C-alpha cells in the first residue's frame, strides 16, 4: 500500500498502462503544455497535473497535445479506437461535453451497436467535474446523469485514490467507451492505494463504505465523504447506516442497492446533479420499483436545486448538498412512520 493523492493515482495508472500496452494513447488540451512556446513541451503536463511527464516518456505520437477543439479530440479518440488503439481523451472540464456531445453520444457510444457488433470502441474520456471551486455555471457541473442515460457508455465516478487506480485501469482495458469522472475537489485527497498492476476494480460493483442496518445512504464522488461523515455522526448515536459508494453509475450495482434497502427499508440518495432526470431520481425509482415491499419510508433524494450553479461562495455553498442537509434527510426517513 502506498499513500497517494487522487490526481497522482490518475497519472500513475495512465503511465503504467501506457508502459504495459503500446496501443494506449493520450490526447487533450495542454496534456503536454508548452507546445509551440519558448518554454517548450512539458511546461505543464495537464492543468490537473494528471499527465505530467508522459510526453517525455512516451513521445509526441502517443501523448498528443491538441488545439481547443473538443469535438475533434473526442472524434479523433473514436477514430484511434476504431483503428485499433486505446485512446484516453481528456476534457479539461466536464462542462465541455457541451461542445463535443455528438462525438460522445452519437458516435463513440453507438459504434458497436450500430455496426452490429463488428467493432469495439475502447475510448476512455476523462473529465474533471463538480462544484466547490466557485467556478460558476459553466465550469462546475456534474454530467454523469446525462451520460448515464446514454446507452453504450459506461460511467465511472471514483471517490477515493484507491478507486481511481482500480477503476481507471479497468476503464483503459475495457473494450467499451468509458466516461471517467474525476471530481475537481478530490484531486488533492490522499489515501492508501494498493500496489500491483492487476489491482483492477470491475465495473458494476459498489463499495460498502460504512455498514449499518437502520438506513441506506447512496452516493459517489465528493458527496460520498459527506455521507460518511453523517454516518459516523449517527453511529455515535447508535444509528447504523449502510453507505454505498456506487463507483460506477452505468453499469449500476442494482443488487447492492436492493439488498441493502431490503434490510434497512429506509434510503437517502445523495447526488450532485440537478434534481430533474438525475441520478438520485433514477435510483429512487429503481428502489421504489424493486424494493417496494421493504420500504418503510419514501426514498429520499438530496440534490442541488433546479438552478444553474451560482458563483459566490455563499451561493455555491447553499447550492450544494451539505453534511447538514444530508443529515436532515437521513433523520427525516428514520423518523418516518
Amino acid at each position, binding site marked *: 500500500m502506498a499513500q497517494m493523492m487522487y490526481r497522482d493515482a490518475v497519472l500513475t495508472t495512465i503511465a503504467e498502462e501506457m508502459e504495459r500496452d503500446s496501443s494506449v*494513447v493520450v490526447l487533450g488540451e495542454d496534456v503536454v503544455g508548452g507546445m509551440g512556446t519558448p518554454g517548450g513541451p512539458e511546461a505543464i503536463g495537464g492543468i490537473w497535473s494528471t499527465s505530467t511527464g508522459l510526453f517525455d516518456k512516451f513521445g509526441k*505520437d*502517443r501523448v*498528443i497535445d*491538441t*488545439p481547443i*477543439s473538443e*469535438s*475533434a*479530440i*473526442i*472524434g*479523433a*479518440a*473514436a*477514430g*484511434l*479506437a*476504431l*483503428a*485499433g*488503439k486505446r*485512446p484516453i481523451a481528456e476534457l479539461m472540464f466536464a462542462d465541455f461535453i457541451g461542445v463535443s456531445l*455528438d*462525438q460522445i453520444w*452519437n*458516435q463513440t457510444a453507438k*459504434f*458497436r*451497436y*450500430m*455496426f*452490429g*457488433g*463488428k*467493432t469495439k470502441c475502447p475510448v476512455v474520456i476523462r473529465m474533471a467535474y463538480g462544484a466547490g471551486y466557485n467556478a460558476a455555471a459553466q465550469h462546475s457541473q456534474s454530467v454523469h446523469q446525462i451520460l448515464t442515460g446514454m*446507452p*453504450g457508455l*459506461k460511467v465511472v465516478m471514483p471517490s477515493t485514490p484507491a478507486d481511481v487506480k482500480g477503476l481507471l485501469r479497468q476503464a483503459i482495458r475495457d473494450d*467499451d467507451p468509458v466516461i471517467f469522472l474525476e471530481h475537481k475537489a478530490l484531486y488533492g485527497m490522499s489515501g492508501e492505494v494498493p500496489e500491483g498492476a492487476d489491482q483492477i476494480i470491475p465495473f458494476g460493483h459498489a463499495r460498502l463504505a460504512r455498514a449499518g442496518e437502520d438506513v441506506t445512504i447512496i452516493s459517489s464522488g465528493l458527496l460520498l465523504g459527506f455521507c460518511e461523515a453523517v454516518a459516523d455522526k449517527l453511529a455515535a448515536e447508535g444509528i447504523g447506516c449502510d453507505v454505498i459508494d456506487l463507483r460506477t453509475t*452505468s*453499469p*449500476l450495482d442494482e443488487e447492492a442497492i436492493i439488498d441493502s434497502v431490503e434490510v434497512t427499508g429506509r434510503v437517502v440518495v445523495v447526488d450532485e446533479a440537478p434534481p430533474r432526470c438525475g441520478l438520485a431520481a433514477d435510483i429512487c425509482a429503481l428502489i421504489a420499483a424493486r424494493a417496494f415491499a421493504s420500504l418503510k419510508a419514501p426514498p429520499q433524494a438530496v440534490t442541488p436545486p433546479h438552478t444553474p450553479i451560482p458563483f459566490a461562495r455563499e451561493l455555491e455553498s447553499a447550492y450544494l448538498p451539505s453534511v447538514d442537509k444530508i443529515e436532515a434527510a437521513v433523520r427525516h426517513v428514520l423518523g418516518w412512520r
Partner: protein
Amino acid sequence: MQLSREALQRAYRQMKVIREFEERLHTEIQTGEIAGFTHLYCGQEAVAVGVCEHLDIDDKIVSTHRGHGHCLAKGCELNGMMAEIWGSREGLCKGKGGSMHIADIDKGMLGANGIVGAGAPIAVGAALSAKIDNKGKVAIAFSGDGACNQGTTFEAMNFAVVTQAPCIFVFENNHYSEHTGVDYAVGTARDIASRAEAFGMKVWRADGTDFFAVHDTMREVLDFVRGGGGPAAVEFDTERFFGHFEGDPQRYRAKGEIERIRESRDCLKNFRISVTGAKLLTDADLDQIDQDVLDSIEAAVVAARAADRPTPEDVLSDVYIAY
C-alpha cells in the same frame, strides 16, 4: 491513363456496381419494402472509386449519410450491404445500422454516418493511428459541400494540420446540401479547397465525374501524404443524379438539369467513351461487365429478400448492458 487492362476493368466494374446498386434501390424503394432514410450516391461513383482504387485494406475511410458508394468502393461485400439495407439479420450490421450506418471495420471502412460533419474528426483519429504505426497508411474523410460548414469539419482540418496526421479530406461538391445550393451555404470567397488551404494544407481540385481525373489527382495526393507531407484536401466537382433522399421533389433543380448531367456528366458513359476511343477496352468488354454486375445485383436483392429477419432479442445484443 496508365492503367492496366485489368485495372480499367476493375475500376469500371466498381463504378457500375455502385450505379446499379443505387438504380435498383431507387426502384425497390418505391415498393415500400425498404425502411428508413436512403440517400443515393448515383452520379458520384467516379469519386469513390477513383479514390479507393488507390487504397488497401489497411487504409481507412470514413463516410457520410450518402455512403453506399464509399462502402462498395472500399470493398464491403455487396450481399451484406443489400441485406443491411433490407434490415436483415444477415446484413453487414445485422440490420441494426441500415443505409446510414453501414460499416466494415475489417475492410478499413469505419462507417457511414448520419450526422453531417461527424466523420472528419474520426478520420483524423484513424490517421493518427496510422502515423503511430508508421507504415505509410492514410485515412480519408469523405465530406459533402454541406458538411464543410459544420464546425467539426473545420476543427478536424486544423487538428490534422497541427498533428500532421496523414489524413485526406475529400470534398464531394455536388452543389447541393439537401435543398440548398452551395453558392448560398458556403460563404467562402473562392471554392471549398481554398478554405481548406487556409487551414494550412496542400490542396487539389479535379472534375469528380471523370474517373481518370480523380484517379490521377489521388495518385499525387496519396504520394504526398504517404510520403509524410502531412494532411491534404481535394475538392471534386460532381453531380448527384437523384434527390437528396428518396422522395425528394427536387424543385430546387433547374429545368432539364438532371437530363443534362445524366447526358454529359455521367462518369460511366464518359469512361466508356475514353477507353473504347483509346482502344484500351472494347464495348463488348464493358457490356460483359454490365451484365455481370446486373446479375450480381439481382442475386443480392434475391438474397436480401430471403435473408433471416432479426428477432426481438437481437435488440439487446451488441451493447454492454441492457437494463
